[in-house]
């Protein structure tokens, strides 16, 4: 690649700088954003810059149009305009904050990446959660909405880690301890969510459920929809349908599948629809 000459003419440094590459994105983020971007693509877009696109790209075709073709082009243009309006409305819709701390929060403080924050200062807490990797709730429950995609309630003492709740791609987090209630919202779509604990992995594509972790093991109870649970002792996931649970003991005894625990589902039921 031909690099621009820097003002200092420092060839040694420039050779070293050739090693510095752009940070790369996660492939799944790249693919998901591309899909969304192209799904919203309007035909009137520039495609490429005047620098990067031949100047004769568009103009000659206009001169070839006859009356019939002109009507077709007008019709296509009208359809494209309508599509553009719909897409613009879609893209311009009010975008919710990434994290919103909701009423129902009774926690006194939340430790975000090792930093204790006052739960009463919701704006500060919500901003901190945007890039949080680890969260621990103290003094009560924390109820939050992630974008317009999911509601979470973390009970007192719950600790989450390995959090990756990016703009696109599946959610990923680990429940180290405590109770996590989750209700996905319609905008969650097929994004997917993976929750790990010491004892199992739960895969979700849209449902309401609770994950409870203590020193004895991990339990997932499903209120609605279906999720898949893979105990640490198993090779393949098994479905956990609505009203059912999977408990995996820390001592790695066989997992216990059965009716959901009402007390585990209670926080889920209290999350707004």
């Amino acid at each position, binding site marked *: 690649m031909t*690099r*621009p000459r*820097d*003002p*200092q003419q*420092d060839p*040694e*440094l420039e050779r*070293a*700088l050739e*090693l*510095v*590459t*752009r*940070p*790369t*994105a*996660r492939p799944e*983020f*790249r693919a998901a*954003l*591309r899909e*969304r*971007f*192209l799904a*919203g*693509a*309007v035909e*009137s*877009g*520039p*495609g*490429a*810059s*005047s*620098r*990067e696109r031949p100047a004769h790209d568009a103009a000659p075709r206009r001169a070839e149009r006859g009356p019939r073709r002109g009507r077709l082009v007008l019709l296509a243009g009208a359809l494209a305009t309508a599509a*553009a309006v719909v*897409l*613009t409305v879609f*893209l*311009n819709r009010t*975008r919710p904050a*990434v994290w919103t701390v909701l009423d129902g929060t009774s926690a006194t403080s939340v430790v975000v990446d090792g930093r204790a924050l006052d739960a009463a200062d919701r*704006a*500060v807490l919500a*901003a*901190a959660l*945007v*890039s949080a990797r680890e969260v621990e709730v103290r003094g009560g429950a924390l109820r939050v909405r992630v974008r317009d995609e999911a509601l979470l309630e973390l009970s007192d003492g719950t600790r989450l880690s390995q959090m*990756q*709740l*990016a*703009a*696109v791609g599946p959610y990923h987090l680990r429940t180290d301890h405590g109770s996590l209630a989750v209700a996905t919202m319609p905008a969650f779509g097929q994004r997917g969510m993976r929750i790990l604990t010491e004892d199992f992995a739960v895969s979700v594509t849209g449902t309401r459920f609770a994950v409870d972790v203590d020193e004895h093991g991990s339990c997932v109870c499903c209120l609605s929809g279906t999720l898949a649970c893979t105990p640490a002792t198993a090779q393949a996931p098994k479905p956990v349908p609505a009203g059912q649970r999977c408990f995996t003991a820390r001592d790695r005894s066989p997992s216990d599948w059965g009716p959901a625990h009402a007390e585990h589902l209670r926080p889920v039921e209290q999350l707004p629809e």
Partner: protein
Amino acid sequence: MGRFYELYFERIHGFVRRMVGDDVQAEDVTQEEFVHLQRAIPTYDRSRELSPWVFTIATNKVRDLWRSQRHQQMVRSTSLDDGDEDGRALQIADVRAGALPQLEDEEMRARLSAAVDALPAGLRAAFVLRWHEELEFDEIGRILERNEAAARKRYSRALSELRRTLTAAGDALRSPGGNA
């Protein structure tokens, strides 16, 4: 639009990631950028160069993020004015004072990448826009709301700082307690 995406996705994400220093926030800002582009493309003035327009939007998105963080007192103040001409953020040494250390490519890459990330935001932006994106200094100046000379100076200072950091690392390696 597919071609546009292929041309610009890595460039935008790379720039944003360098500026915000966090994977999650970089993805959010990159997505914001493409949403904005989707909305703004119909009104794009084709007589203008595309890349400066795209990176001006990206820079503004990064500024918005920093403003919201500052407003909420979440992070120390970060600004594209960091490392500006008053030199408050940097103490530039004699950039020719020492030879660059002889390091394996991977180590050199890691040290340089960390050094780029550690540059004050204003210098970092100028460096990325010039080195990676190969924009002209007048374009960089417009993006950073400075004049061409200031953009040129920022880039020069960014290079000086990178050399200083590498030279210091080489000195450390050559010292008795170093690893070399």
